[in-house]
């Protein structure tokens, strides 16, 4: 059974990580000057990275328990507590959130000229919400953060987005809201069914009946599947990405859509294991469909950002495929792939942002031949492309290979079909790269294109380090995950076996 190990650092690290960006947002309220607003936001986001150093350095990967725990009573009558902590499943996302937020601010330096202060407030507010989602260990608290995150993201798209931003923002908001409302109902049902507690760790050990599990799992699934997004709940993503400013896209692809998969690992699987096992074949099938379908969609795109958005659908299919294989390679591969996708897709959106800021077009046909004009940019885009298609030596390969190995052990046919996605991935990404970088310059606007400047290189560099760092030494990440994932897998299996009726029902569904 998981415990909440109190924080022993002498200062409330996780709370600081939630409140430092909020403090930054509050201070920004008093700032009028756009330049000052940028610097203040940057400093606060860097401070957040600074805070994640002791977090990662002091994290003990050998135990599965929740660490850096803090628990304060909040609304006593309803047993609601301010309870936070991290384990091997969540800790890396906290670090990734801090890194990608800073990068987002850096890429917005000149791209955002309008309402700079409000933009930076939204980004910092969003960061606080995202950190909160990853550290919350009280369902009520989690739901607050989950919903709070929606608002700044909605604003980022709706205020600083492209021409069709209102459609995209509302679509994003409604999609997520429908999912969230179903989850809220399920959260209340869980609360009452478990005798009035929102404590995540306690709920993990509560024996819910199988029928209840099936319904509650489905309701949580609605929220998480939209977020991932899984096929066929994915159509909000391309629209949102296309309209969002670069910073919005980086955060959306890098962190926000990871929360769906994180939700499966943190809530759905441990709360409702026997339902999860019953639903697994369906989810594995949807994952494989997402991999292939997303790749096909990417082929049909003429818009740089839309192509990457659909490639995200395909890549996130790998993540859910690995998680629901429910063996150590699958789950850890899925977790790593979430980090990888955050890094490489974040980097890809950064690349789009860099070029969009110069040309004001996202149409692939408007590029072509720019490798001769902007060699540094072309080299950067090439490395990220290779990471995205999972070339060995880059981060993408380790994630995909371990996921496929996990899926292969669950049922080979899923891995076989999913592997086709690797061929398609190479196809659409290299074709994209060819159309952007190779050939001769056909668009006269690109004749005098400026290469990446120092600020942009500085923003991109940490991502490149991660591409090769994770690719060559993924154990650094796996070591953090081992204890928690092993515990999760054992927990799911043991708890599912506890209810024989449930297991029978599950087997009947599995057709065994």
């Amino acid at each position: 059974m998981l415990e909440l190990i109190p924080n022993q650092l002498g200062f409330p690290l996780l709370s600081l990580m939630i409140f430092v960006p909020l403090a930054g947002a509050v201070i920004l309220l008093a700032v009028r000057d756009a330049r000052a607003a940028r610097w203040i936001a940057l400093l606060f986001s860097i401070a957040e990275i600074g805070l994640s150093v002791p977090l990662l350095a002091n994290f003990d990967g050998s135990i599965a328990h929740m660490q850096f725990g803090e628990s304060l009573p909040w609304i006593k009558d309803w047993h609601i507590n301010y309870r936070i902590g991290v384990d091997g499943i969540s800790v890396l996302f906290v670090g990734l959130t801090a890194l990608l937020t800073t990068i987002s601010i850096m890429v917005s330096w000149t791209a955002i000229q309008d309402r700079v202060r409000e933009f930076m407030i939204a980004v910092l507010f969003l960061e606080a919400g995202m950190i909160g989602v990853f550290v919350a260990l009280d369902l009520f608290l989690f739901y607050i953060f989950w919903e709070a995150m929606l608002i700044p993201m909605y604003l980022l798209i709706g205020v600083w987005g492209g021409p069709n931003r209102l459609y995209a923002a509302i679509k994003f908001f409604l999609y997520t809201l429908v999912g969230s409302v179903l989850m809220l109902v399920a959260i209340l049902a869980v609360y009452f069914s478990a005798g009035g507690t929102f404590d995540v760790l306690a709920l993990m050990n509560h024996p819910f009946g199988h029928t209840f599990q099936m319904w509650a799992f489905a309701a949580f699934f609605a929220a998480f599947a939209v977020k991932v997004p899984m096929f066929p709940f994915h159509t909000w993503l391309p629209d949102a990405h296309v309209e969002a400013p670069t910073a919005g896209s980086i955060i959306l692809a890098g962190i926000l859509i990871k929360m769906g998969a994180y939700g499966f690992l943190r809530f759905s699987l441990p709360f409702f294991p026997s339902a999860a096992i019953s639903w697994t074949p369906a989810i594995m099938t949807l994952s494989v469909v997402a991999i292939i379908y997303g790749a096909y969609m990417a082929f049909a795109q003429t818009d740089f950002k839309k192509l990457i958005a659909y490639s995200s659908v395909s890549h996130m299919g790998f993540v859910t495929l690995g998680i629901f294989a429910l063996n150590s390679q699958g789950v850890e591969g899925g977790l790593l792939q979430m980090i990888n996708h955050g890094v490489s897709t974040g980097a890809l959106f950064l690349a789009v942002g860099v070029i969009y800021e110069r040309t004001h077009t996202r149409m692939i046909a408007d590029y072509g031949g720019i490798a001769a004009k902007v060699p540094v940019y072309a080299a950067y885009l090439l490395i990220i492309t290779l990471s995205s298609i999972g070339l060995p030596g880059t981060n993408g390969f380790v994630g995909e290979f371990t996921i496929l190995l996990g899926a292969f052990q669950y049922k080979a046919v899923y891995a076989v079909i999913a592997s086709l996605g690797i061929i398609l991935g190479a196809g659409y990404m290299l074709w994209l790269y060819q159309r952007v970088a190779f050939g001769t310059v056909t668009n006269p606007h690109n004749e005098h294109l400026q290469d990446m400047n120092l600020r942009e290189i500085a923003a991109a560099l940490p991502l490149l380090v991660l591409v090769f760092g994770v690719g060559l030494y993924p154990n650094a990440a796996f070591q953090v995950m081992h204890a928690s994932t092993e515990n999760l897998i054992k927990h799911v299996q043991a708890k599912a076996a506890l209810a024989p009726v449930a297991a029978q029902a599950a087997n009947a569904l599995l057709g065994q």
Partner: protein
Amino acid sequence: MLKYILIPLLPFFGFLIAGLFGKYLKERAATVAVGGVLGAFVFAVSAFIDVANGTIIDENFYSWILIGNLSVNVGFQIDQLTAVMLMVVTFLSTLIHIYSIGYMHGDKGFSRFFAYLELFTFFMLVLVMGNNFLVMFVGWEGVGLCSYLLIGFWYEKKSAADAGVKAFVTNRVGDFGFVLGMMLIFTTFGTLDFTDVFAQATPQLAAQNIDLLGIEVGIVTLICLLLFVGATGKSAQIPLYVWLPDAMEGPTPVSALIHAATMVTAGVFMVARCAPLFSLSHTAMNVVAVTGAVTALFAATIGLVQNDIKRVIAYSTISQLGYMFLGLGVGAFSAGIFHLTTHAFFKGLLFLASGSVIHALSGEQDMRKMGSLRRKIKITYAVFLIGSLALAGIFPFAGFFSKDEILWSVYNAGSLGRSLWMVGLTGAFMTAFYSFRLIYLTFFGKSRMDHDVEHHVHESPPVMTVPLMILAFFSITIGFIGMPLIPHANLFANFLAPVFPHVQHGGTDHGLEIGLMIFSVLVAATGIVMAYVWYVRDTRIPDKLAEKFSGVYTLLLNKYRVDELYNYLFVDGLVHKLAGVLHRIGDVKIVDGAVNGVARLIGQASERGRKMQTGFVQEYAFIMGLGLVVLIGMYYVVK
């Protein structure tokens, strides 16, 4: 131990320096690059000597991926097979680097070219040195990447960029098999380390079956066939050979190093490395042998009629790789690797020499616009002739020894062997014919050059001709390390004997062996003479035949239209058309249609609802009353 790690690392450092500082180094980047590969060669020689003295190196450096029962290390092994490959790769790489200094002189991508070439050498060395499947796969995909970058080196040409993508994606199709093969290996053996996997490869294991879509398949057979799918991609065998002819879009030194001598032999190397597995499955071995034989003949027929000097050699490479697989497939593993080695020298030579021809002719590659060059570029002509004699398999040139060893093993491999031997011999005849068709069209007859081109014809500088001469020397002599007939004189086979399972392949009837040898040399000689008659004595014959058999001729000239078929089926049909349809129907109509439909429905419903808010108190009171009646009525009904 350090010196072994330095073998791949020195080229990698060369890559980093040439890649990052190329802008400042300019053509000095070549010095750095040559230094890198030369250093690797020196250490490879040292490693080779160690292995020859009985030291087998197998060392893990660090744990790469460790999850649950999956444990993969970054580790290298140097056994006899790797030692041979190290020599071939580092030696040819060094010579080709030097040659490239002259060939690429003045190109605006000079330092980029050397950076890619260094990176390629690094990955190729990782490929041959890896001590487990996954590290081998790192090199495997890495060389594919460099191949992609170098084929598309002149990326402003659309055909070059297209060819690069085609090469990478076709190889990915092969890698699909490789990856699945690795998974099956892992679930079967619980490890991906060569030593551990091969130690468990026993006949008992070969008897185990698994169910594949209702068909019982031997588990080892399935593993081998999946790995072989990977090999057909990398080593350009049917059905995945289509990328290699297009790969000639790259600069010619690239064709020599990557698409003739080293990378394309990776599939052969991989099958040889997995010899302990393959030799357990007759089915898999037969598939390898038949694929090799059919490819050897198929590619040779296309080579007969091509007009682009590099394409002829490219098809010849596909064909010769087929011979290597043919050898492996009948269990003659060391003969296959021997042919890989000799082929690396004479085919590397042929490509570099054709580069020298192209260089002399200001970029012209069409043999119909050549002719009579033998007096103008004498060194190039001499080495080209040596290379072609080696390729045709004329005694005592290198190709003779290795090809005959393969054919002799095939001849002795049962009833299937005899048929494959016939196929191989027919291919050998065609090989001799097309190699000398090339020689005669290029160096003999009347000049058909454009006036401007003819005016500028010049021999290449020493930086290019010296490597050519070195390769020519080896194309003559290297065959003698694999002497047939005399007991214990086949040094090559003796050296490799510890790595390969002993499969009976050579016959003991020396009289027959000598007879067949003479026969196959005669067959090759006939091909050469025929080419002479057709292309020097009476040059009208080919045209007349082409007219008479225009159907066959066009089919061959168009390479059996396989490219068109693949394009139609896979690129246009399975990818672009289907993607378009899915996008229009799947996402836009069905999924988004449903989403927008729901939104519209809610909108309409609320529109109706809004109409009820009329503001007339009487209407509200009426509806309230009506509701009350309905509720009370329901209460009684339910009760």
